[in-house]
Each structure stands twice: as structure tokens, then as C-alpha cells.
């Protein structure tokens, strides 16, 4: 065995040596699985619904953003007990800088987060906006719940990358978050009640918040409150959102193709692309475009439902991604075969110098 092989074997053995205890066999595994197989499509469906709504709002909502789709990865610090802040860190909100305090000792963690922003789909057939997951990193006091940190990240001023917009006005903020198993209650400030400036924008704003909240764990319902009271009059049309909202609340107003995976920044030798779609004959198409604009992968698949109903789809792409590709997911128009409702997701690996959402 060569020295190289010995070192590789050492690496493999040391990696495996960290193995935890094997998980026990779930006695009700079969029952669990049957229940899950019904639940997951529902969740995916619900997720798609929200995206559709957001897409519908794009033309009206573009209060911030525009241009081509870019990279990401920001490091942000939430408000409160900031301490051990690296020189490059930003304190949330972006306009405030927290001086490191020698007396504070709260641990700061760097976590990954996914918030939902809005894209205007290329060659839109429905005119609806696309809700797309956007990956970022942030620094946060260890005591801050993950979902609360993400909602804080989504609200307030954002330095959006080109190609992304948001319908959440800058003055809207999260006051408090309460988790109760599969439901989350999000207490908002008064500015929330004014909505985003139009019905479509209002729906999209809600969708962004709901999708961002439900991206974590098993949250299925989001209850919005202001001053602790359910909201009966929201936005320009006075929407009654006093009941908890699931991700399928506004599905019919989102782009016909919803991509939930991957999010920006993910890639490797293989990639799973998945989501839900409501497209002609349930046929979903995919392209991978390299940095030079060349289509290097073409594929299509059949969603579990289509032409009037939403179905789940997924692609497994085995391709040596360099981190500069773009994934395009769409369906072909039956009229002229052109790609319709195209959603674009950049494949970019971790980039510490990536897009800073909170840059002033």
C-alpha cells in the first residue's frame, strides 16, 4: 500500500471512528412510513401553494431588487446580546453596529438559514411570482431560536442581490415568536397591519413569512398576531388572517413551478432538484447551464400530478458542478414548445465573501 493509500485509509478510518450509536429500529416503522408518505406530499403541496402566491405578486411588489440572479451567503448578527463579534460581522438591523462589550459573554453561533425571497419567472405563463429559497449564514446569540432569527433576517432592511425582490416592507418587524409543536405564533409590529401596498403584494408578503417560518422543523401553521391579538384586518383589502395559515393558503397565486431544493449555495458532484408543479401533462423540465451559458445537462420528469393539479417532482443530477452553474426548472408550452415559468437557481458553494444581505 502506497503512502497515499495509507493516508486515505487513515482519513476514512478516523472519519468512521466518530460514528455515533446506531439509531434504534422504530417499532412502528411501517406505520410511521405510511403516515409520512401522505404527509410529505401535502407539505410539499402547501409549500408550492405559497410560492405561487408570491410569484403572482412580483410585478407589483418589486419594491427592492432586480437584475440577474447571483450568489449569496451573508454573515449577520441578530440584535441583543452581541459580543464576540468578528471584525466583519454586522449587527441586525443593518443600520446598527453593536460595540463588543467586555462584560457580555453570550456565545455567538454561526448558522445556516434559508429565507424565502421572490423571483420574477422568465417567460411567465401565469403572471404569478416565484417564491424561491435563499440561503445565507448569520451570527446569532446561542439563545435565539432558529426560526425567530430567520424571521428577523427577512424583515427590516435588506440589501437584496440582483434578481431577487421582497414584498416585506422595511418597517415591518417581528416582535416575538412562540413555538407550539407544529404551529408558530409570530407577533408583528404595527407596520405589519398596513400590508405591502396592494393585494398581491400583501399575499406575497404573507407567503414569504409563512414559508420562511415553516422551513424549520415541522411547522405547518403560522398564526400572525399584533400586540398578541390575531389579525382580522390586514393590508389594503383588510384580509382576515386571524386563523393560522398553512403553506397551501395561497398556492393558486404562485408560479406553476416551485423549486424547494436546492437553495443557492448548494452543489457538489450531484444535486437533487425537487419541488412541486402544476404544469401541462405533469411534465417538468430541467437544464443546467454553465458559466459560459452552455446547457450542460438536460432532463425532464413527470410530476405526480399535473394539468390542473399540483404534483411533486424531483431530479437527481450527477454532474461535476464547479460552483458556477445555474439550474433552470420549467415546463414546455404546448403552443410553441418554449420554456415557460422558468425558475432559476444558482449553484454556488460556500462563499465567505458572498452576498451580504445586511450590507448598508
Amino acid at each position: 500500500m502506497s503512502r497515499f493509500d495509507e493516508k486515505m485509509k487513515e482519513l476514512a478510518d478516523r472519519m468512521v471512528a466518530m460514528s455515533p450509536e446506531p439509531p434504534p429500529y422504530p417499532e412502528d416503522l411501517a406505520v410511521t412510513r405510511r403516515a409520512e408518505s401522505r404527509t410529505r406530499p401535502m407539505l410539499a403541496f402547501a409549500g408550492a401553494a405559497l410560492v405561487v402566491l408570491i410569484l403572482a405578486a412580483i410585478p407589483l411588489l418589486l419594491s427592492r431588487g432586480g437584475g440577474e440572479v447571483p450568489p449569496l451567503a451573508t454573515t449577520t448578527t441578530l440584535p441583543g446580546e452581541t459580543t464576540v463579534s468578528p471584525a466583519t460581522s454586522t449587527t441586525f438591523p443593518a443600520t446598527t453596529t453593536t460595540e463588543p462589550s467586555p462584560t457580555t459573554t453570550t456565545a455567538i453561533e454561526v448558522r445556516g438559514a434559508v429565507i424565502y425571497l421572490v423571483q420574477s419567472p422568465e417567460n411567465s405563463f401565469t403572471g404569478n411570482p416565484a417564491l424561491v429559497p435563499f440561503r445565507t449564514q448569520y451570527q446569532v446569540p446561542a439563545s435565539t431560536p432558529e426560526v425567530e432569527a430567520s424571521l428577523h433576517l427577512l424583515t427590516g432592511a435588506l440589501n437584496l442581490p440582483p434578481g431577487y425582490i421582497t414584498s416585506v416592507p422595511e418597517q415591518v418587524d417581528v416582535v416575538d415568536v412562540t413555538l407550539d409543536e407544529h404551529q408558530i405564533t409570530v407577533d408583528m409590529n404595527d407596520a405589519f397591519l398596513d400590508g405591502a401596498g396592494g393585494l398581491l403584494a400583501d399575499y406575497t408578503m404573507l407567503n414569504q413569512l409563512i414559508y420562511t417560518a415553516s422551513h424549520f422543523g415541522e411547522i405547518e401553521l403560522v398564526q400572525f398576531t399584533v400586540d398578541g391579538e390575531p389579525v382580522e384586518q390586514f393590508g389594503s383589502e383588510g384580509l382576515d388572517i386571524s386563523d393560522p395559515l398553512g403553506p397551501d393558503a395561497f398556492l393558486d397565486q404562485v408560479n406553476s413551478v416551485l423549486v424547494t431544493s436546492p437553495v443557492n449555495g448548494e452543489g457538489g458532484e450531484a444535486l437533487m432538484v425537487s419541488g412541486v408543479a402544476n404544469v401541462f401533462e405533469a411534465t417538468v423540465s430541467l437544464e443546467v447551464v454553465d458559466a459560459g451559458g452552455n446547457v450542460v445537462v438536460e432532463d425532464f420528469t413527470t410530476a405526480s400530478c399535473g394539468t390542473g393539479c399540483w404534483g411533486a417532482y424531483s431530479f437527481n443530477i450527477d454532474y461535476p458542478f464547479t460552483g458556477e452553474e445555474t439550474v433552470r426548472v420549467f415546463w414546455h408550452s404546448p403552443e410553441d414548445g418554449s420554456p415557460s415559468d422558468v425558475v432559476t437557481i444558482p449553484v454556488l458553494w460556500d462563499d465567505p465573501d458572498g452576498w451580504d444581505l445586511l450590507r448598508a
Partner: protein
Amino acid sequence: MITATGVMDNENVYRSYVAELTKYATGLVGPFDAADVVTDACLKAFASSKWPEVENPRAYLYRVVLSVATDHHRSTLSRRLRELKTASPESLPAQEVDVDVLEAVERLSVQQRAAVLLTYWADLPADAVAERMGISSGAVKRHLARARRHLEEWLS
């Protein structure tokens, strides 16, 4: 693994392979999420319509673990590593973590990690590695070559 009625005994299969699958998953996603990946993979495999016809459940489970680990995303290990480095001592996981190795493996894609593990830990020939990864032998060699480049500094 097949009962007298021709039904795959899921529990028997699980108990037979869960230990090695957990080690494999540890090499793919790190020790923090390995158990979750194995559980998810077994749930996925047992619910698959192909499962009753699977001739080699061990190889099939390895493929599903790789699939779930790939979906788990390359960035997750990086995030876990960053958390580990910034965590307060009292919040550190009970198990021992080889940070040096994690930092080296972090540079690899999940597919490259799988090729390295199956070749050097499981000690399988290239065609067997290819079967467990669901790719060609040539692709296995390419993954190993790329892994070597990424690990150049660690290996030197």
C-alpha cells in the same frame, strides 16, 4: 431477509446493517447527523415500491444512504463545523469529534466522500464501489482522483 411469505423482513434487515450504515453515514455527513440520515434512508427504502424486489438489500441501502446524504447537502457539514468551533464548551457534543479530519473531509463532495469511504474503509474494489454508489467504475475513479486533489494538503 425474506420471510416464508416472501415479504422482506425490514426489522431484520435494519438490525443487520444499521451499525455499518451509521458508520458510512458518519463518513458522508459527519457524526452529528449520521443517525438521522440512516433513519431517513431506511424509511425511504422500506417504503419504496422497488424494495420487495431488491436482491441485494445491503447494497441498495448503501445507495439510499448516499442519496439521502447528498440531499442533506454538502454545506451542512461546513455549518456543523463552524458551530463546533464557535460553541461554548458546555454546549459541545458528548461524543469526541476529530476536527482535523472533519476539516479535511469538508473539502470533498458527498460523492467523493462515498468513494473514499467505500474504497479505503469498506475496502471494496472499484466495481463494488460503483454498485453501491449507483455509478460507473470510471466515475468512481474520477471521484477518487478529485478527492486526492482536494486532500493534497492533508495528505502531504
